[in-house]
């Protein structure tokens, strides 16, 4: 499969960034740092991939961070208050995320609200819901009680692949967090969904030209709702990972996560005009941002500057995307010149 120039550029930038920091940042090229990158940003990659689906459908999901909060609090309540077993909670969490996504989709499709407004509203409503069901408020003592359910805490496991494969004899290897493998699994599933199923083709066609899709018999409404449901589902997975990590959940879980998810998706080449992009870009985009943030931290660059740099990276990414679009137009014009 041929690489889109945008994807090739992204890979190049990722490699260049890693190389840059390996040279300039102390302790960047260490196993510990690689571990930090994976454990710290796998959830961001998952959110970015989930966010890609609504954007591919020419929409946007501003509430994905709030859905993370909802699922986190649901998990918290189910285990700390209702003491349900983990193997019940995990599926319940995934369903909750998907349902929240469906709500978004239905608002957009039935009430004809613009995705920006609909998910802006659910951003508020879902966050309010988090407060409403907050077990921490109901039973204040629980704020300091860690979650102990093995199904949940088991998500925060690290695998010494290096040791198992005998590689640690040669080189220091990071321990791979389960969240990284979850991310890889989701990547495989989502990428297959997007590129190798009829649903995926429908999604791209709805994003590219919804009317053409409708006239060809595609069920546009169902496709759109599904896209938002998938975003909600990934938010649920991300929430599980974070709850496992912190062994608790707070009302503020996921606040601001949608911005990182959108930024990573855009850096990953998913276009706002719809119908362009895949899962690889958002995932790599999230890790690119992660590498930059970790590298800057190791270099001692203050947090505040990191924010600025993240913003500039986003501008550069979208500017590059625009340049590519212009180049495409110019290429089309010269194609026509040859044909004339």
């Amino acid at each position: 499969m041929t690489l889109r120039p945008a994807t090739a550029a992204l890979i190049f930038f990722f490699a260049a960034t890693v190389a840059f920091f390996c040279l300039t940042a102390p302790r960047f090229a260490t196993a510990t740092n690689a571990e930090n990158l994976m454990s710290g940003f796998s959830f961001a990659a998952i959110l970015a991939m989930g966010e890609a689906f609504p954007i591919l459908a020419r929409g946007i999901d501003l509430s994905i961070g709030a859905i993370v909060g909802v699922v986190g609090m649901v998990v918290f309540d189910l285990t700390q208050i209702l003491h349900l077993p983990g193997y019940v909670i995990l599926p319940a969490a995934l369903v909750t995320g998907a349902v929240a996504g469906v709500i978004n989709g239905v608002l957009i499709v039935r009430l004809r609200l613009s995705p920006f407004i609909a998910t802006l509203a659910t951003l508020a409503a879902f966050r309010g819901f988090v407060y409403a069901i907050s077990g921490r408020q109901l039973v204040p003592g629980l704020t300091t009680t860690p979650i102990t359910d093995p199904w949940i805490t088991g998500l925060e496991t690290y695998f010494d692949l290096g040791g198992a494969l005998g590689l640690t004899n040669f080189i220091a290897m990071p321990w791979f967090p389960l969240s990284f493998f979850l991310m890889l699994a989701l990547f495989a599933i989502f990428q297959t969904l997007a590129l190798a199923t009829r649903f995926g083709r429908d999604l791209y066609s709805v994003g590219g030209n919804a009317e053409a899709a409708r006239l060809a018999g595609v069920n546009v409404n169902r496709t759109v709702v599904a896209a938002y449901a998938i975003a909600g589902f990934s938010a649920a997975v991300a929430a599980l990972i974070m709850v496992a990590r912190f062994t608790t959940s707070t009302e503020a879980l996921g606040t601001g996560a949608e911005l990182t998810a959108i930024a990573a998706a855009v850096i990953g080449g998913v276009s706002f005009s719809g119908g362009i992009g895949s899962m690889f870009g958002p995932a790599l985009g999230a890790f690119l941002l992660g590498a930059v943030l970790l590298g800057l931290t190791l270099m001692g660059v203050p947090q505040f500057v990191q924010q600025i740099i993240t913003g500039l990276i986003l501008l550069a990414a979208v500017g590059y995307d625009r340049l590519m679009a212009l180049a495409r137009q110019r290429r089309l014009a010269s194609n026509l010149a040859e044909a004339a």
Partner: protein
Amino acid sequence: MTQAPLISGRSLTKVYGHLIALRDANLAVMPGEARGLVGSNGAGKSTLIKILTGATAPTRGAVEVAGEAAPLGDPKEMIRRGVACIYQHANLAPAMSVMDNLFLGRQPRQRFGLLDRARQRREALDLLERHGVDLDLDAAVGALPTVQQKEVEILKALALDARVILMDEPTAWLAASEVAKLHATIRTLKAGGVGVVYISHVLDEIFALCDTLTIMRDGCVVAENTVAAIDRPTVVHLMVGEKLARESDEAARQKRRARGSGEVRLRASNLAKRGVFKDVSFDLYAGEIFCITGLIGSKRTELVRTLFGSESFDSGSLEVDGRPAAFSSPSRAIARGIGFVPEDRRREGLMLEMTVTENLAMAMLDRFRQGFMLRRGRMVEAGRKAISSLSIQPPDGTKPVNLLSGGNQQKVLVGKWLNRAPRILILDEPTVGVDVGAKAEIYAILRRERDRGAAVLVVSSDLEEVMTLADRIGVMVAGRLVAVHDAEAVQMDEIVREIGMETA
């Protein structure tokens, strides 16, 4: 035993708000029949087609496929029942490949629900070969030239192996050889029992290809007949109605004023834009109407855009009123007295949610400015005058422009420029989607402008319009201006011949 028609629409009515697009229309197609559907712009042909394909649901009426009642407004159902359509306007996903577009919504699947890419490619290649088309299956459709995009659309419909194929202006973008290919395909389909509904402005095609004919006017079916039993003048009369046919005949007999007052307002010398057009030279005189005609795709729109400054040319020179001009933006062209009515009034001409008055004033806000303020009173007054002099219906300046009919919308668009009394007025396809009455009014408006002393340049693909309106006629083929004639000195056949010239 009488056969059931492949598809039949009965008493179809469609109302959009106040606009009756279709009134009690009936249409039926038998197996192996090619039925032509003709009518002026706005007669309701596209609406009728959209109802038959499920793209839109009628306000009243029913559709039957092969004798069975069909659900309304459900494209998927109609496709399933064997109804395919080649729509008039771009119906492809631009970022997706040709192959993906051909199989939109119905990609073949393997066991686990995954796409069967191999089978898809085989079927696609087979399709290309069967119809003698050469396309790169993996190219992004948006990057293809319009002609090839149209081929993809046609193939997409043919690939459905439908029992009825509806075609809305299928040859609008095709060159003569491709038109011939399409007609051959249609004949093959007919022989196989497929029914075809063929909408076209080009009566020649209808008479050459179709067995029967339905004529529409103002949203109603006014006549149905076999092609053999009717002749061209009758068809035109039925399409246009008695009164307007007479007016149009009169108009056609008007005196022509090639080169107007003799004063050259605009001179183009060897204008060229790489890959678009070249060697374009002509003079435009005050007091004349100069029509440039040609096939769609001959780059006339691109040419006039460079005259107006919304695009730039690469080489050659332009003179306005004797002084050199190379406009980098429309505001500069406007400052030199040029007005431009673009081709797509919805996309490039009007602010649809804003009022008639506001749209009329849009090109001359500075005339209503006093210091910081906008003198709305003056704006409303100027609007009132324009509405009255252009007979805009309804005569209400506060109405949002998207509630007006196509013809009245176009009048607003033209009126926007008239208020400035431009020295040069350029119009690109000024009567597309305009009903016959408004068309005549617009022609009268343009003649008034010409008589006032303006230089009028009209780009038009409608030969009848060109013959009616022009004082001089230019013909553009594939980006070159190949001929310029005085209208009185040339016959329509010669123009048709020149237009159909293929590039060497």
